[in-house]
């Protein structure tokens, strides 16, 4: 660790992992509710479990992004963080607010929660992913502003690298587009239209800048390739991302009451969205193959490469599968969407946050890399989680294909619930795979507690086996 204020990243990363565990537990509850409908009813109805599952995902990814930014920006700017105390204060505010929100979801009926938290003043709740009470939303904005203030001032007083500029642009964009969550017109079509300005322009827009910056940072560190080379490719990739992704928003405007031309605009541009992901994968592998050093943290390298591949598969390939309007006409709002959502979020955002944690945590704990034994456990967790996510996606895809066939495509379409019964086998298989994912997560957490002789940068002359790359 070069700057002692980078240490504030550590609690952020720990909180992220903690909330990640919660997310997966609720995912398993929901998965079971798909096949045992009355499981935990009425204590935790499905809609509550889902809200907790998705909101925890968002919040822990935000914790991860913030931790990453607090870690990266001082090092990139070659200066201490503007205010470590502000960073710590915001950490506790965000954690407590997040925890209270989740407790509110679980303890109070949602309508009651809405009433208690001022939803009558400004109705923003009850929309997918934006279920947070008004107070929490305001809290998120305040935390985000404080966070951006802190980082922007840090950047301004230090070196301005492309990586930290791209990161900050992504984070500012994240905060700006979140403001659309406060706009909830009575007109459902308008509501949905601008709802996507938060959701789509986050995950297929500004978040990808953050993703690119995190990946580029770790790649510079673990490969030793010239910053110039990595940064210019970063620019090329995020350019491709935004020129396809911004108009690509149109693939959500096919069937919600928006004009018909979006079917063309949305299909054309989103059909090209896999290209930046493919470029990112090629880029990551290329940089690792051209590495000038063998960083002892092989686990971080593995996560970095995995991010490229899984983001391409989940966001790129699975997105393309159902993005063309004639296909989406049948698949819209089915398990196909769920399949895509799972692998895309895991492959792009979960994995990139785990990449930066994998790289930064050992440093924050005073070593270049964890012991070989700890890394082996971590790599096991990588494969367990990644492979089980691939199978979760495949099972949901199978369920979705069958659902589309029986409910939408067939000449004698069956009712929704009849179809759900017929595809329950796939839901069972998904649930079993989900348990394996949890085992992977347990292994991941365990890897932090595995002892052994820690590696240093100097001791890393050998050992390039195990990360699955060809020697340069």
């Amino acid at each position: 660790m070069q700057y002692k204020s980078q240490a504030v990243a550590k609690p952020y990363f720990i909180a992220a992992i903690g909330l990640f565990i919660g997310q997966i537990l609720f995912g398993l509850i929901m998965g079971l509710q798909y096949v045992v409908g009355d499981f935990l009813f009425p204590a935790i109805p499905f809609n509550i479990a889902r809200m907790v599952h998705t909101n925890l995902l968002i919040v822990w990814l935000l914790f991860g992004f913030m931790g990453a930014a607090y870690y990266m920006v001082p090092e990139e700017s070659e200066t201490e963080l503007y205010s470590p105390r502000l960073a710590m204060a915001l950490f506790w505010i965000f954690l407590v607010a997040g925890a209270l929100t989740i407790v509110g979801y679980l303890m109070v009926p949602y309508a009651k929660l809405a009433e208690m938290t001022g939803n009558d003043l400004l109705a923003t709740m009850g929309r997918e992913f934006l279920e947070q009470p008004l107070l929490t939303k305001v809290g998120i904005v305040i935390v985000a502003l404080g966070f951006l203030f802190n980082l922007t001032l840090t950047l301004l007083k230090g070196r301005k690298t492309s990586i930290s500029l791209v990161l900050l642009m992504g984070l500012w964009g994240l905060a700006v587009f979140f403001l659309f969550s406060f706009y909830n017109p009575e007109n459902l079509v308008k509501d949905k239209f601008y709802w996507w300005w938060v959701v789509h322009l986050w995950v297929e827009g500004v978040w990808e800048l953050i993703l690119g910056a995190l990946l580029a940072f770790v790649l510079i560190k673990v490969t030793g390739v010239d910053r110039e080379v990595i940064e210019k490719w970063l620019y090329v990739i995020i350019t491709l991302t935004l020129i396809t992704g911004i108009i690509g928003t149109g693939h959500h405007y096919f069937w919600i009451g928006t004009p018909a031309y979006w079917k063309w605009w949305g299909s054309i541009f989103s059909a090209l969205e896999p290209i930046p992901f493919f470029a990112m994968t090629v880029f990551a592998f290329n940089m690792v193959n051209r590495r000038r050093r063998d960083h002892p943290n092989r686990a971080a390298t593995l996560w970095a490469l995995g991010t490229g591949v899984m983001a391409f598969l989940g966001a790129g390939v699975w997105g393309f599968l159902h993005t063309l309007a004639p296909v989406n006409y049948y698949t819209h709002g089915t398990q196909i969407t769920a399949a895509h959502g799972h692998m895309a979020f895991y492959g792009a955002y979960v994995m990139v946050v785990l990449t930066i944690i994998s790289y930064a945590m050992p440093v924050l704990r005073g070593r270049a890399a964890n012991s070989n034994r700890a890394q082996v456990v971590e790599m096991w967790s990588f494969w367990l989680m990644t492979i089980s996510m691939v199978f979760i996606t495949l099972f949901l895809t199978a369920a979705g294909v069958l659902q589309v066939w029986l409910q939408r495509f067939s000449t004698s379409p069956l009712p929704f619930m009849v179809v759900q019964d017929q595809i329950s086998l796939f839901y069972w298989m998904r649930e079993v795979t989900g348990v394996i994912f949890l085992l992977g997560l347990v292994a991941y957490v365990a890897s932090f507690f595995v002892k052994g002789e820690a590696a240093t940068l100097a001791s890393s002359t050998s050992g390039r086996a195990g990360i699955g790359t060809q020697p340069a």
Partner: protein
Amino acid sequence: MSGTFSKSMARNVFYGGTAFFVLLFLALSFDTQQALPQRDNRANLTPAVAAGKKIWEVNNCIGCHTLLGEGAYYAPELGNVYKRRGPDFIKVWIKNQPTKVPGRRQMPQFNLTDKQLDDLVEFLKYTSEIDTNNWPPNIEG
């Protein structure tokens, strides 16, 4: 001879390209705003519909159902439920939840008043009349 590939040019292309597509997106969004009155059924957007939308929201219906294909995939699509089931069925159904059939998916009891049920039905009726480019493909949603 190898060509030039400079970071400054890559950066300029990024800024220029991004600005370009943001502007294009804004232009299309502007056109969409102009075109919406013909499609979004706003003529029927009564206070009852607005009240119904709020009931839809504060009971987190989207946490199980889809509405015009967006939401959770645990329970049936409701964008066209008005056409599929009609107003009376919807109200009776909501009143009678949960079914408590062992092992079946359960919908909570939301204790809605008759007025609230009427508003919710109005909202679902309004939603079913939005011009969705003929989606969903059939009445089952």
